[in-house]
């Protein structure tokens, strides 16, 4: 497939991919800085007014999810376009719409003081107690809507392309292989399977998100229209949870594609693999209820389902991927460099990041823990050490196959600095959580401050590491194409 792509096409595709990744990387780095500032404020080192803290909190969450999703979608698009015919126009359109959305969100948050966190939980956008006005809320909500439109178009396109090539989304998940109608050797590639899953869950999430966003917009414009807050919370988390979750399922495509190239062992979609992905598809759609475990008015069966399935949610794919990764690397004589190292680190981050989540998904624990910093501890490890590391691994992979750029000692320093940094941030959060420190509080009691400061120092290390990654990538963009094309992949093994 790769060889049929002519060189000009290949170059312009990589151009777009590089733009996505640079924007994603820079956004993530900027958001880390906001994160550090917040931790410093909580640690009593920095004197930040609470209003500014909540604006930072809002932009930090929105930016991290948006930036990571943007970069991860580039990873998915890069590899998926080797198997199915995707529209580059739509890919470009998504970038443009995302940028418009981001600008609106930034203006809403900083110029109009909108600060109800990225979850924009109803009726907060309309109910600020005077902290922000209608304009700020509208800029934020409409900005998010435009971002959502961009991503929705992208996933409609991936869905369309997968159906065109494989017949249906069910076949994209390999259901005919599971049922035995088709041989395992003809199964869709792991990349297609993962992309199908992401398409299904994100089209659902974004359609739900559009409903909730427009609902909030109506409520902001006309507060006399009120809605059921519980249903609003359900829909909001159905959207937010699924969309945030999908980042790792897009990122993992990098694992499926890069490790085989390093080891010369193909990553096959066998039946357990396909079953695992189908299970995770279904679970991801329904387990957002673990965000609602504290809402005692929710139907009990939904909460129990949320708890049980939360244990099960990521596990099928996680286990099958971690096991697969170990098998593929085991005694393969893999050459460890930045790309393969980061990919392997991401698997480690994913595995350990899930553990605190499983603890939190237990209803009894959740009542005590969910509003503490335990939860940020989980998702900083999961996202920071798992999902986005897959993206960084891809960055190093791309620069390796598409240019003659060499990595140097500095990159290794970046690797170590970033890893230690994120571990410190996460551990800082987890300790805070264990001390019952509430999350989302601008000011801390003195006894809560030390872990926050510790986390902030970790954050600085992570930013240093990430900056090194970005510098490497920008250097690549300057000399791009010097090594030819994907054909260079042979040199990896």
């Amino acid at each position, binding site marked *: 497939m790769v060889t049929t792509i002519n060189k000009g096409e290949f170059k312009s595709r990589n151009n777009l991919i590089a733009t996505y990744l640079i924007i994603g990387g820079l956004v993530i780095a900027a958001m880390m800085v906001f994160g550090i500032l917040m931790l410093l404020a909580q640690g009593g080192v920095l004197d930040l007014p609470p209003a500014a803290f909540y604006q930072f909190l809002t932009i930090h969450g929105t930016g991290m999810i948006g930036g990571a999703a943007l970069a991860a979608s580039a990873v998915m698009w890069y590899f998926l376009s080797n198997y199915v015919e995707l529209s580059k126009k739509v890919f470009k359109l998504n970038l443009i719409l995302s940028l418009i959305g981001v600008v609106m969100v930034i203006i809403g948050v900083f110029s109009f003081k909108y600060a109800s966190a990225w979850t924009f939980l109803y009726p907060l956008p309309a109910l600020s107690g005077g902290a922000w006005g209608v304009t700020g809320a509208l800029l934020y909500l409409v900005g998010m809507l435009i971002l959502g439109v961009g991503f929705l178009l992208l996933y409609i396109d991936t869905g369309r392309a997968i159906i065109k090539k494989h017949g249906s989304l069910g076949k994209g998940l390999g259901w005919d292989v599971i049922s035995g109608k088709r041989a395992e050797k003809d199964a869709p590639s792991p990349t297609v399977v993962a992309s199908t899953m992401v398409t299904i869950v994100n089209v659902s999430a974004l359609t739900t998100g559009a409903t909730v966003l427009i609902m909030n917009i109506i409520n902001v414009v*006309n507060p*006399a229209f009120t809605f059921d807050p519980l249903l609003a919370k359900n829909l909001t988390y159905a959207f937010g949870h699924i969309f945030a979750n999908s980042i790792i399922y897009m990122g993992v495509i990098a694992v499926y594609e890069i490790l085989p190239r390093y080891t010369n062992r193909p990553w096959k979609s066998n039946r357990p693999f396909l079953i695992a992905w189908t299970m995770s598809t279904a679970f991801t759609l329904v387990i957002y209820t673990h965000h609602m475990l504290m809402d005692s008015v929710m139907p009990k069966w939904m909460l129990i389902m949320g708890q049980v399935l939360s244990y099960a949610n990521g596990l099928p794919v996680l286990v099958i991927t971690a096991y697969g990764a170990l098998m593929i690397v085991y005694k393969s004589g893999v050459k460890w460099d930045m790309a393969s190292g980061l990919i392997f680190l991401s698997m480690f981050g994913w595995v350990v990041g899930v553990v605190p989540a499983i603890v939190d998904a237990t209803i009894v624990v959740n009542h005590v823990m969910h509003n503490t910093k335990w939860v940020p501890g989980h998702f900083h490890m999961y996202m920071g050490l798992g999902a986005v590391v897959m993206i960084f691994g891809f960055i190093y992979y791309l620069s390796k196959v598409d240019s003659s750029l060499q990595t140097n000692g500095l990159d290794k320093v970046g690797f170590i600095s970033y890893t230690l940094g994120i571990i410190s941030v996460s551990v800082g959060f987890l300790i805070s959580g264990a001390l019952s420190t509430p999350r989302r509080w601008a000011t801390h009691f003195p006894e809560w401050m030390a872990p926050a400061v510790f986390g902030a120092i970790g954050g600085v290390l992570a930013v240093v590491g990430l900056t090194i990654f970005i510098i490497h990538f920008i250097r690549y963009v300057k000399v791009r194409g010097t090594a030819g094309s994907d054909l260079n992949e042979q040199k990896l093994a």
Partner: protein
Amino acid sequence: MSKNWRNTTAIFLTVLLGCVLFYAGTDGFRAFTAESARTYKLLKDKPKFPDVTLEDSKGRVYSFSEFEGKYIMLTFIYTSCSDVCPKLEMNLAEVYSKVPKAWIGEDILFLSISFDPARDDVDTLEKYRKAFESDGETWRMARIADQAELDHLLEEFGVIVIPDGEGGFTHNSAFYLVDRKGYLAEVMDFTKIDEAANTVVTTLKNDTGE
């Protein structure tokens, strides 16, 4: 692109047309329901309260023009109403309690007007008054016995009353503030007690110059 200029032009034109439709259809993105459109129109038109004849819970009969020189805080109700009206009146009582005593009776009167004159006679109104602990003087309950006068008032103030076929009515509700000369000054959301009380107090403050 050039051979497709018509299509491109059409895209711009249709978007423009759509925006115009929405702008015109919502009074410039202000009113998305007939009710908000009504309020918006009322505040723009500021109709004068027609000179109707009222009969209050004490059996007194007088014309509305007797109130000239005072602000009037108005609601429209019917006493056999079991859903909105009690809430409306309870909220009105709260607004009443939030207005400084010095102004009440002097600068402002409260008035609940029944649009069901057939059933809401003097005795019924008197019972209703007691239920909400109004004093019958600074907060009066009254009906308009003449159906033509009543219809004219409802029309002027945009109150839509639909009989529900079971002896009740469905109607839109709000607080109305009429100024000293008898013109409508404010229409307020009756569910937002603090906001309404604030508006009343501010209006009076500006007016009495305190």
